[in-house]
């Protein structure tokens, strides 16, 4: 199960991760059930799903499905622990989930091997506290860099199986450049200290 919990503001960070995970899933013949808790982000997830599915000749309703969006993270997560059909009677197109091969026998987290969440906000906390703690759903996440420090304690405590942390090389070079600018700025500040003191300027 793939959860799209981000929108366009985090797309540059999370879309490459999402595409990689989907490619791995389809290459290994793993069924993909997509849903999302951020309404305006779900179309991004669906676009990636369709693109990658086409690369692997995957069939909608058999190899993958998009259940869509339901508001209220907590209610959705708890209801899915009992019966997914209670909250998702149909997929995003209105096709009943019991009419599709991929979801015909999927009832709760017990039928989901792994949840992979793509997170740019607090939804990760809800997944861990409601789906993992309560229903023991195995889960792993790909997060934005901002969210990573909040997610590490879950990994350290063994509450989640994994955390996508591999950065893009260009991003790392950008980071090093900013560190360089910070060092340069501080050196400039240090070497002009005496000059500013003489001119009576205060820091």
């Amino acid at each position, binding site marked *: 199960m793939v959860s799209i919990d981000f929108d366009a503001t985090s797309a*540059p960070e999370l879309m490459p991760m999402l595409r990689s995970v989907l490619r791995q899933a389809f290459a290994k013949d793993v069924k993909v059930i997509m849903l999302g808790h951020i309404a305006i982000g779900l179309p991004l997830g669906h676009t990636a799903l369709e693109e990658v599915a086409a690369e692997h000749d995957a069939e909608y309703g058999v190899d993958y499905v998009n259940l869509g969006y*339901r*508001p209220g993270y907590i209610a959705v997560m708890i209801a899915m622990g009992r019966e997914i059909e209670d909250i998702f*009677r149909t997929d995003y197109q209105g096709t009943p989930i019991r009419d599709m091969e991929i979801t015909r026998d999927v009832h709760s987290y017990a039928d989901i091997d792994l949840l992979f969440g793509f997170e740019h906000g607090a939804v990760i906390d809800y997944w861990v*506290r409601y789906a993992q*703690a309560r229903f023991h759903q195995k889960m792993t996440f790909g997060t934005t860099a*901002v969210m990573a420090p909040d997610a590490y304690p879950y990994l350290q*405590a063994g509450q989640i199986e994994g955390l996508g942390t591999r950065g893009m090389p260009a*991003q790392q070079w950008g*980071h090093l450049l900013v560190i360089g600018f910070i060092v340069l700025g501080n050196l400039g500040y240090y070497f002009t200290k005496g000059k500013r003191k003489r001119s009576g300027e205060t820091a």
Partner: protein
Amino acid sequence: MGSLGMIIGTWLAGFLTLAILSFLYKDNPFYKLAEHLYVGVSAGYWLIYVAFFDVEPMLVTPFMEETGVEKWILIVPAALGIIMLSRWFPKTAWLSRWPIAFTVGVGAGLGITANLQGYVVPQVQATLLPMTGFNLVSLNNLILVVGVVTTILYFYFSKAHKGVLGVTAKIGIVFIMVSFGASFGYTLMARISLLIGRLYFILTDLLRVID
């Protein structure tokens, strides 16, 4: 060559990207246009999504198809939802406290157990670590335990931070600062990612400088 729709979409996205980036120079009408457009489109999207992914499949369709208690129980959430809108009218605004109270009550009830079960207990458990032997794992465990204890002690304000408490609180500050530094570093990386994303779009899709 893409379709006409794709070409127009790409140029529009390019214009909006440059309009947002123009804020780096100073606030201007192009930036304001792009900003307002983003807010408006997002609000519209939310409205459509809530109507088609919530109200229609969770309320309207079941109400038409279900029978008995399962049908009529739907009146309760529908009524609470409508009552929430009473906030728009000052004379009836007080009514909206009922659905808000319901939401807060459910949230608090679920939150208390979830926070204990899914956060407090596992995190405390993860801090009770063995520190025997001289190896990197023990050292890592020691740092973790010292960090947690000293950070908690920093937030103990019932006694002046002097003597032993003063020293431990100071060590706690170091751990807090390291944590802030990590968060700031990651935040910086996130912003660079966003910039890379936009520049990649401009160079590949818009200008086609990169294949």
